[in-house]
């Protein structure tokens, strides 16, 4: 039997570029890939790895269903999607924080019900439940910072890298929920049936990561 191929679901954008640079350090070349490519499926030159470039929020779904054995995506997305997958490696790139943000004078604990606008309803709900605060989640898909400005919500739950967007809109970080970075996730069946191939890829990523430092 020929060597088993591995399908890797990559979050489009920064994570995809970073992952490819790590793999290239380990001499796994993706000549087909260019930063402006519109191709969604890319094979490496040895035809052992198949990359599929997908929207970040879809990466855990591709991996859980087994369409891809491996996925690389931010921890924020993994926490939000709550899929039953292995989380094998922290690539320590694409770092950001998941935070509660609002106006500087916001006193959440004095409100009987906190209105929270967010792209991450599960993370927000879990966090507020754990804190014992009643909350009303408003799911948005972008421009989250707008919600408190127009009084649609009291606070937001969102990711923050530099904090520039928050500052420009007069908002501050009220509480940190967790920090996020790019993680390698794996399908459980793929791990069982292609153990050696998956482990080899994880080792490549580890070594490539160290070489990049």
């Amino acid at each position, binding site marked *: 039997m020929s060597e088993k191929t591995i399908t890797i679901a990559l979050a489009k954008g920064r994570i995809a570029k970073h992952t490819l640079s790590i793999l290239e350090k380990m001499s796994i070349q993706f000549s087909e890939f260019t930063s402006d490519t519109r191709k969604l499926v890319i094979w490496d030159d040895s035809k052992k790895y198949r990359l599929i470039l997908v929207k970040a929020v879809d990466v855990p779904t591709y991996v*859980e*269903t*087994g*369409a891809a054995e491996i996925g690389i995506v931010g921890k924020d997305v993994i926490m939000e999607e709550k899929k*039953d*997958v*292995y*989380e*094998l*490696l*922290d690539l320590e790139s694409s770092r950001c924080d998941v935070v509660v943000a609002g106006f500087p004078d916001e006193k959440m604990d004095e409100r009987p019900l906190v209105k929270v606008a967010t792209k991450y309803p599960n993370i927000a709900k879990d966090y507020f439940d754990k804190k014992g605060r009643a909350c009303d989640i408003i799911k948005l898909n972008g421009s989250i910072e707008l919600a408190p400005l127009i009084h649609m919500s009291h606070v937001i739950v969102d990711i923050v890298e530099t904090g520039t967007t928050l500052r420009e809109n007069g908002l501050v970080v009220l509480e940190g929920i967790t920090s996020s970075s790019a993680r390698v996730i*794996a*399908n*459980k*069946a*793929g*791990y*069982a*049936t292609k*153990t050696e191939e998956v482990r080899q890829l994880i080792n490549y990523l580890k070594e490539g990561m160290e070489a990049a430092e």
Partner: protein
Amino acid sequence: MVNTTQEEKTNRIVQTMAKRFESYGYRKAQTQAFETYAMYGEVDHPMDPRDMIKLTNYDGELLVLRPDVTLPIAYRYAEQLKRQKETEPMERKFYYVQEVFRQTFQPNDPIETLQMGIECFEPSRPEADAEIIALASHTLHDLNLSHHTFEVGFATFVDDLLAPYDLSTNELDEIERLIRAKNMAELQQFLQPLAIDAQAKEIASNIPTFYGTIEVVEERLETYATNEAVKETLDYLKRVDESLTLFGVDQQVVYDFGLINRMDYYSHLIFQAYVEGVGKPVLMGGRYDDLSQQFGVATPAIGFAFDMDPLVSAVPTAKEDEYALDVAITYDEAAREAAIELAMNLRERFYRTVLGDRSDGALYDVSMTDGQIHVRTATREETYDNVDALLRSFIERQGAN
């Protein structure tokens, strides 16, 4: 439309599996569609009561539409055991093929799924446990799913390991979650500040690496073998592995100490099976020695269940699944008598046969016109002089199968 191809395929698979289960001494059991909600309230199990489909009977008692098969069988077995005199022999090996009903928040999840499995009410022994895995593997071979992998673990390993320390349920839940996700980085971070001794911490944080053949796992565990729980579990699994070799299924098995299940009724050995091309396990099983105790009788047991939907989709479609019919006979006026005689003879031998205008969708397309008999299949065409010669070829074929 009714998808008969899919149903025939499922049917064929169920028959193949039933034959295999019976060859290991299992007999078919049937549980009723409605169970009392109270029975599910009596015992620990991993099912969310909200997922069960409930209704009330005439007396206002709450019923559920069969959410699983293991609990009702274990309950009936316990009840029977209570009534039984000790000297009387009792059947102890059962198999079932039944729909189970659970609803979820996901609108697209099916409520009804077909499960096929076994329950064996016999005490824990390495050969007995290995034989159960051998049966599951044998069944997968029968279905031409030779490339499969069993992951074998031990349900209480983490609990046993961490029992001496005063950890909260929340802490144990989090440790279990991280082990199940094989998330070593976060597991290490989480264990670091906990008040447990350095060695237990070391073992716990390395559990995700205890994955592979029994030799690999043993080698990795060797450094920690001073712990009694670790030693006992490893010894037991080594003996299971020896038995698996005797049953000829050791090649398909990996050991995974990260396969743990504290919420469930599983008590010792647990296992699941993966086949290529399916993203989730097609089979889950394990030993549940303490379950029947909650029904008032102590009787150890082991069982497994195949999730039939992913299993059926993984099995390659066979020729007989695609054809709804075996033989379709078309004829002209002169061949009328011979055609009917042929049809009746074939039906006597249980070939699925139709007479008349239908000429497609059958494995054998028989045309009796102009004094000639043509038989066409997907791959070849044959001509026969008379009905007897054709019938003989069918009988020979049947004999060959």
